């Protein structure tokens, strides 16, 4: 049986990809961001998933305003990186898992989630930046260490799906994965956010208090997050912070009780608050102590840059 073992929340700031591609990771500004993902890369290497479902949004790369699917599941055998105006990012082509993707599609559609099926799609920084942060820099002739099923969500045109709808879709995905006969270890990414607004006179908005409460409640009280109305995301955390509904698909796909094993938060990466969390399905017995220690260590890495 296939099983979703962990969820990863991760911002997907394009400038992070550019810093990586242009060899700027050693600069103090970027070191602050990348150093926060060192424990995550270690965790990823130890976890060794077979497949990652990556919930992300396209940024006018694969989808123009000709066609705006709310939930689009990538069922192709591979997904090449898109040319976002500077040539395709020098990253590996993402290899899909069409069998599992199609199984998920059939299962969740019968669970009343009307997915769009995508058999040909290029993927942009929304998907490749979180992969880089979790796996490190890989060249086009290398391979990502797991298969990738992209799930593209419309969060560009308002209204995106509600937090509740996203959370419920996550639960349907969990059910679908668990009914797949092959023994596969699956992780799910929720990407985008955290607080940021990149458009209009209010651009540059950051709300660390909102972000930290969001990170806390992913473990403590996801039901509260599910009720956040769109207006509150936009008003409190910026027009583009509404991407955070994608994290709720990730959360819905996990067990009701989860353990936070790592967290990182820093402001800014270009216009955005970078947030990151790793959640594992709750383990009983002695795992608790270990988790608390790791969580405390993770907290210590929280940084908000207040001055140059």
């Amino acid at each position, binding site marked *: 049986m296939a099983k979703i073992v962990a969820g990863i929340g991760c911002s997907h700031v394009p400038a992070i990809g550019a810093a990586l591609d242009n060899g700027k990771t050693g600069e103090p500004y970027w070191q602050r961001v990348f150093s926060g993902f060192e424990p995550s890369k270690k965790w990823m290497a130890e976890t060794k998933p077979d497949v990652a479902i990556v919930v992300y949004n396209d940024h006018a790369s694969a989808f123009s305003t000709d066609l705006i699917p709310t939930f689009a599941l990538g069922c192709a055998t591979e997904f090449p990186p898109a040319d976002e*105006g500077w040539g395709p990012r020098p990253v590996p082509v993402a290899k899909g898992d069409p069998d599992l993707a199609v199984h998920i599609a059939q299962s969740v559609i019968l669970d009343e989630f009307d997915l769009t099926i995508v058999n040909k799609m290029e993927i942009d920084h929304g998907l490749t930046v979180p992969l880089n942060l979790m796996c490190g820099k890989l060249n086009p002739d290398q391979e990502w260490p797991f298969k990738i099923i992209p799930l593209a969500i419309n969060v560009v045109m308002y209204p995106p799906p509600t937090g509740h709808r996203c959370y419920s879709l996550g639960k349907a995905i969990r059910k679908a994965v668990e009914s797949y006969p092959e023994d596969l270890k699956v992780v799910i990414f929720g990407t985008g956010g955290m607080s940021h607004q990149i458009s209009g006179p209010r651009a540059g908005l950051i709300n660390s208090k909102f972000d930290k409460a969001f990170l806390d409640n992913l473990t403590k009280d996801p039901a509260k997050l599910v009720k956040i109305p769109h207006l509150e995301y936009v*008003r409190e955390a910026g027009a583009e912070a509404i991407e955070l509904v994608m994290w709720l698909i990730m959360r819905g796909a996990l067990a009701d009780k989860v353990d936070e094993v790592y967290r990182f938060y820093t402001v800014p990466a270009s216009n955005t608050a970078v947030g990151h969390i790793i959640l594992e399905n709750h383990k009983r017995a002695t795992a608790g102590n270990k988790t608390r220690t790791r969580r405390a260590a993770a907290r210590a890495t929280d940084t908000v840059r207040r001055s140059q």
Partner: protein
Amino acid sequence: MAREPHDYDDIPGTFVFDAERCRQGYPINSFCMSLMKDANRKAFRADEAGYIKQFHMTQEQEQAILKRDYNRMLELGGNIYFTAKLGATDGHSFQHLAALMTGSTQQDYATMMLAGGRPVEGNRSKSGKDKPARARAKSPARKRT
């Protein structure tokens, strides 16, 4: 037809790209999308006003593009991920666009971001409802108990 009123219209400095703006701005965003091809970028640079004619925009939309009035483009249905492609065609960084939209210099904008970004306090509401959402949500609940 005039835009329908929305709860988010009260948020200052924000043009929410909703389904109405998406419909209205289809020509702007289609134009921006066309700039993904180098041949189109060249044609646009050679004759800006002539090139954009093929997208059948309103005069206001054409003017906003020709004047590089990024806020006006958003107001008329442009979306930032699309209009950023126009900025890139002009050879500008995103920070340049952010400075234009916020009416600041690039340096001031960068300094604000390094200092933790634009605070939400004072930036929630045009009509003075500038309290955190949670505080607002609490008061009716108290009345019920």
